[in-house]
């Protein structure tokens, strides 16, 4: 305490307030300027993606003028894709795979998290630690042995293989998020419900799920991101065009087409990127909260 006052006295007092305010104002301006530069740099690829998607093949191959701007913007690429049967199939495959993956992963994760956070049994601590550990095992370590496993199940080149495998990417983290949210619910709440004669399913449905809804949204977004965007498993196990999902379909099949199909490819990327961007626009706060909740506690 004496140290604090001693050093405080050493600082010249004059014009302190004014200079602090000015300092803050400059810091704010500097931050805005620097952030603007970063935002511009970070948004170059998405911007160029959109610009290219608005160009015709002729305009791309002509190479006249700045490539950064579409001189004669056209929606032809989008019209082509929307009416293209192959692209429709990729999109449709991605939609139903993602929907099933989200439902499956969330069901598994919520049930397990409820059990692990509330019904503590022998070994529940070991299981939660193990779940977290398997989250750290990346798909690139497992895709070769899984190739054999999937092969023996007869699921090679079958879109259903993703419904089986994507939950392994989503469930550990979703469970981890849900354990965090469920543990933060006061024990008194479910004890009171138990005393009133509520059953476990009732406690889960009527107390835990409503109270932990932000966590459920965060985990759902994570499962969605995995189901929609994962690339390695579909690339390794789906080789024919009719079974492919969006990511692999665009990367593998569209590129094989015309050399100057870049307008179409970028339009496909825009359409593939749109659903996650729309979802994040509305629910980003929940996701960020869920992601950082564990990190900032303690």
């Amino acid at each position: 305490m004496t140290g604090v006052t001693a050093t405080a006295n050493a600082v010249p007092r004059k014009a302190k307030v004014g200079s602090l305010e000015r300092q803050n104002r400059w810091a704010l301006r500097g931050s805005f300027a620097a952030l603007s530069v970063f935002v511009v740099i970070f948004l170059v690829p998405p911007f160029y993606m959109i610009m290219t998607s608005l160009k015709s093949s002729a305009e791309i191959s002509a190479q006249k003028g700045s490539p950064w701007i579409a001189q004669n913007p056209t929606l032809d690429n989008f019209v082509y894709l929307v009416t293209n049967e192959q692209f429709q199939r990729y999109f449709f495959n991605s939609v139903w795979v993602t929907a099933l993956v989200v439902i499956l992963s969330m069901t598994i994760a919520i049930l397990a998290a409820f059990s692990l956070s509330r019904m503590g049994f022998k070994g529940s601590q070991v299981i939660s630690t193990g779940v977290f550990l398997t989250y750290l095992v990346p798909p690139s370590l497992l895709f070769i042995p899984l190739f054999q496993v999937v092969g023996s199940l007869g699921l090679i080149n079958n879109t259903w293989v993703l419904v089986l495998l994507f939950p392994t990417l989503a469930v550990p983290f979703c469970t981890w998020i849900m354990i965090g949210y469920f543990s933060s619910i006061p024990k008194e709440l479910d004890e009171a419900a138990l005393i009133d004669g509520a059953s476990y399913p009732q406690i889960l449905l009527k107390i835990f799920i409503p109270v932990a809804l932000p966590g459920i949204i965060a985990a759902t977004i994570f499962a969605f991101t995995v189901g929609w965007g994962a690339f390695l498993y579909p690339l390794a196990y789906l080789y024919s065009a009719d079974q492919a999902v969006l990511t692999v379909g665009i990367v593998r099949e569209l590129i094989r087409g015309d050399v100057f199909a870049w307008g179409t490819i970028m339009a496909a990327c825009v359409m593939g990127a749109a659903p996650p961007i729309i979802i994040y626009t509305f629910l980003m706060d929940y996701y960020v909260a869920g992601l950082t909740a564990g990190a900032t506690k303690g």
Partner: protein
Amino acid sequence: MADGSTMVIGAGSAKASASRRVGSLKKLARRRSTTALLLCAPLIVLIVGLKVYPTFYAIFLSMLDRKMEHFVGLNNFVYLLNRPSFQLVIFQSCLFAITAVVMKATLGFILAHLMHNIRGKNQRIWRGLLLVPWVIPLSLSTLSWWWLFDPSYSAFNWTLNWFGFESIPFLGTTWNARIAVIVVNTWFGAPFFMIMYLAALKSVPEQLYEAAAIDGATAWQKLIYITLPMMRNIILITVLYSLIVTFADFDIVRILTNGGPQDSTHLFATYAFNVGIESGNIPRGASVSLFMFPILATLAFFVLRDVLKRSKEIST
């Protein structure tokens, strides 16, 4: 207090029904833990079947010969270690992961600080804009990078030429391609660091800075003596976690260079894919990806230690 009074009132009857009560309680507890285990069953089946089992199966596979008929011990590993192209993979994987993580962490730290200076509603919009790279599916955004790097249509080169510079073959030479994959990974991953560090910054008590300001600390001193020590844990865990993910990265290199030029940008994952899936040598592919295992296990150990320590702190 409440417990004590009920004990006194119900003492007589409690004695009589004590044995029955204990029995039913035990039964209840047993039923409860059976239910608990049942609720966990899908999770356990999924993880044991599709994560734990394949890990051990990979170890078994890696010790077979190409036709998967004979047991060859560690021959696949020895063979790989003696191949110059695989030595290059090890070098490139380490270079890629370490450089990219350092850059992501630095950039994320700077961005978080800039973001922290902006308070209120504005912050949400800026954060949203900076998160765009992280939200777009990586394989799709990497395609747009590829198109930006395209040898004859590169928009970067057009800009360089416009300013009077020579064109650069972004993916054509070894070091250019290496830098390119690192840049794309940094672009994709820095927003994640930003939001983690921003959350950490928000949790540093404002009084510390006020006290330091009164003591006449400079911005640099505040950073070194307050911000960094307060954020130490979260910096550590994000870096470790990101090292794991970056080491195991696949999408960027696969799409951008597919290992080229001359196999100089292959990572463990993409090389394993080439060897195991595309050339059909499953055992050797399995051994390639298993090289990641000791590195990842070491990193995971440190992550886990930190996470367990933290959850213990939270519960007490």
